[in-house]
């Protein structure tokens, strides 16, 4: 075996629809090392993993295994080269048994038939190694989540892999299972397997890794030996120092204003708990946290898209009963969802139709919609929002991401809501359109609207919010005022506390 790295990425660049997910990233992983990959949401970790595993083709750059280039963009080729992935979301076949799940794609055979005896004994051996006692014949979809995860793990181990990529493997594991996982990881390492370990849990990274690589905004920032770096320094590297245009505009104190939205002790079993918050008139309340902390779920529950198990929601001091989105809308609540392509717009329909969609009842008399009033509304909104479209008759799909996002905003603004909940309003939006959307949000608040802003973009949260709530694992872990908030403080509150290591 040569002395060089087992796997090397050279100058990898990948763009999705004009947005740079990765630009010029170079990374080396030595044989038998545990290499941690860190970065905020959207730093490019997932894309990098997908390129290594062959499910995404890079635009440029190369992947070397043992010094020789790997044909990228094929899962089969990557697997044959010994690269296996344990995905964050549990990618399993819910209808198939554990043993089928473990071996699908590489089934042991005897002649043309499956060697079921071998599948069974191998699956048993792998799961024993993981310390799991799982019913091999039951459909995996019927197993508890943690066991499903272990089946995924067994699948990855069943490859004679040389590089095992683990993407947030402990996200759905209990402390005991995490301990087992760590034991397995170290055992694999002692057998010479390299591990690329991606996690938000910094304790785990410090406990396990030999090297840490940090990505930020799709760029490589640093690779350091783990023992030469501490947690503060790592967080600093992840967020960077430049606090993009966070100049605090002086605003009137809003504490005297009316509370428009109040949430008390909201709970959804297994998703979030004890969520209490207030949004006052004219106030922008930011909601920060890692992906999966439960922020969008809270918003959906407040808006009655999802049920709630406990707690209450008050709009303008009056309770909002659970169950009806229509009632929430009538009472002056609006939610601009995260996934604008699927949940926010009807892409094949025209710009105008999308804008007026949520306001049709107010334009309708005796069951007929007034085309003249609809046109007036559309023209007014397009002026207000500065939508860059040649005509309101164009299909919404023909607009850029930023202009599409303006349409989603406009659709709800047309109803003049009292409280606006924005979920990732600028994801995938270019810088110019971002600035216009920021101006719009500030303008709405200045007119007296209450805004709840969910965003993973920390500079965005910092520059727009009057107060920032931070969520961690389904709970509000802290609140920071505009003056005291920094990226470091937010991250420290957002990153899950010590896990198995403390136990």
């Amino acid at each position, binding site marked *: 075996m040569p002395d060089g790295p087992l796997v090397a990425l050279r100058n990898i660049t990948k763009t999705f629809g004009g947005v740079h997910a990765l630009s010029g990233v170079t990374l080396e992983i030595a044989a038998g090392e545990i290499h941690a990959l860190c970065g905020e949401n959207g730093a490019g970790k997932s894309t990098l993993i997908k390129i290594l595993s062959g*499910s995404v083709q890079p635009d440029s750059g190369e992947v070397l295994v043992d010094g020789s280039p790997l044909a990228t963009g094929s899962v*089969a080729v990557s697997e044959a080269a010994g690269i296996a992935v344990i995905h964050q979301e549990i*990618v399993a*076949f819910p*209808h198939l048994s554990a043993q*089928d799940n473990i071996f699908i794609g590489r089934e042991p055979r005897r002649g043309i*038939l499956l060697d079921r005896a071998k599948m069974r004994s191998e699956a048993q051996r792998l799961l024993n190694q993981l310390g799991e006692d799982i019913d091999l014949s039951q459909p995996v979809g019927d197993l508890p989540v943690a066991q499903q995860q272990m089946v995924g793990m067994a699948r990855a181990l069943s490859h004679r892999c040389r590089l095992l990529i683990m993407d947030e493997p402990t996200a759905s594991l209990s402390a005991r299972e995490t301990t087992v996982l760590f034991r397995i990881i170290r055992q694999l390492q002692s057998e010479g397997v390299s591990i690329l370990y991606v996690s938000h849990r910094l304790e785990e990274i410090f406990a396990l890794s030999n090297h840490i690589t940090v990505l930020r905004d799709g760029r490589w920032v640093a690779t350091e030996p783990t023992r030469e770096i501490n947690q503060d320094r790592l967080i600093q590297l992840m967020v960077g120092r430049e606090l993009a245009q966070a100049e605090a505009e002086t605003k009137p104190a809003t504490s005297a204003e009316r509370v428009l939205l109040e949430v008390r002790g909201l709970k959804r079993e297994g998703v979030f708990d004890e969520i209490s918050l207030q949004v006052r008139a004219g106030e922008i309340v930011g909601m920060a946290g890692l992906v999966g902390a439960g922020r969008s779920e809270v918003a959906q529950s407040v808006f009655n898209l999802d049920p709630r198990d406990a707690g209450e929601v008050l709009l303008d001091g009056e309770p909002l009963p659970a169950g009806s989105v229509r009632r929430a809308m009538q009472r002056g609540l609006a939610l601009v969802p995260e996934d604008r392509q699927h949940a926010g717009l009807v892409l094949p329909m025209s710009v105008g139709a999308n804008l007026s969609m949520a306001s049709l009842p107010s334009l309708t008399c005796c069951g007929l919609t007034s085309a003249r009033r609809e046109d007036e509304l559309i023209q007014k909104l397009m002026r207000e929002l500065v939508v860059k479209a040649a005509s309101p008759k164009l299909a919404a799909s023909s607009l850029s991401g930023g202009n599409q996002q303006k349409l989603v905003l406009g659709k709800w603004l047309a109803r003049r809501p009292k409280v606006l909940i924005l979920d990732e309003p600028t994801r995938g939006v270019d810088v110019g359109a971002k600035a216009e959307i920021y101006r719009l949000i500030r303008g709405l608040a200045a007119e007296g609207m209450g805004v709840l802003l969910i965003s993973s973009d920390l500079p965005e949260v910092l520059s727009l919010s009057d107060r920032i709530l931070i969520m961690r694992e389904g709970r509000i872990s802290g609140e920071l005022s505009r003056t005291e908030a920094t990226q470091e403080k937010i991250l420290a509150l957002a990153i899950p506390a010590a896990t198995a290591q403390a136990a």
Partner: protein
Amino acid sequence: MNPLTLLARRREYAVALALALTIAVAGIVNPAFLAAGNLRDILVQVVPAAIVGCGLTFVIVTGEIDISVGSSMGLLAAVLGQLCSPLHAGLPVWVAVVLTLLAGTLIGLVNGLLVTVARVPSIIVTLGMLTALRGATEMLMAGKWITDLPSALRFLGTGSVLGMRVSLWMAALVIVTSILFARNTALGRRVYAVGSNPHAAHLAGLSVGRIKIFVFTLTGFLVGVATLVSVPQLSVIESGIGIGLELLVVTCVVVGGTSISGGKGTIIGTILGVGLLGIVRTVLIFLNLGERSVYWERAIQGGFILAAVLADNFAQKNKRGEAHA
């Protein structure tokens, strides 16, 4: 688990139970129903649905559908008749048989390519085929009947080997092979994987498209097989053969527990479904409803498919409730 939940979950048990009850009731009301000759007639009658059902089970397991099988059978019957009838092409029977199987396979392959390569939803592809193939059949037959089928061909439909009808031997062979394929081959398991979670299948390095092309092609081939053993039971080939077969077979497959959203379903379940639907038809005749039995058959067939999907939803909901507890 209470018995009702078990029945809802393991559809095979529920269908087997319904089948046994129907036979028992029919036997009590009219003992002639249980006569060996009658039972054999029922079996012979359900052969095409059973053979095509095996292929369609795999198509539905991948999350797709094929409603062109009835028209496909109509066209293959016309092709078969014209190839071996002395008044038309008059080819040797074995040549006609091979060409018919090839034609069936080709129709299935075209379905598969349109669904995967051209990315047309399978319901639309096969709806188009349902109409187009029937039209082609009518053109080919030009309103005439083929009545001079060679006796070697009639043997496939009416002859017996070792005391059992050729068509029953063929159905048994197809069923056993299909069960073995589903349970004990890598490709068989992959068919289920693709339907269970296409995204995960892609991540596992499976070629989702090729697997779907395979199941459509297999179904086309099996329609050919079904044509060969069922059409020569009659002495006449006309352009209306196979009308409604697609609805019957889809009903049997879904009643037998195959999930219309993919990932789940067994050959045994489908065969039990075929048995149940086939029995119902005969029972209606035995109940002496006369003309009306045809109307009842349709109504019951429709009721069955709705009940099957409702039971599926019930089982799903139940399962989720349990997982939360």
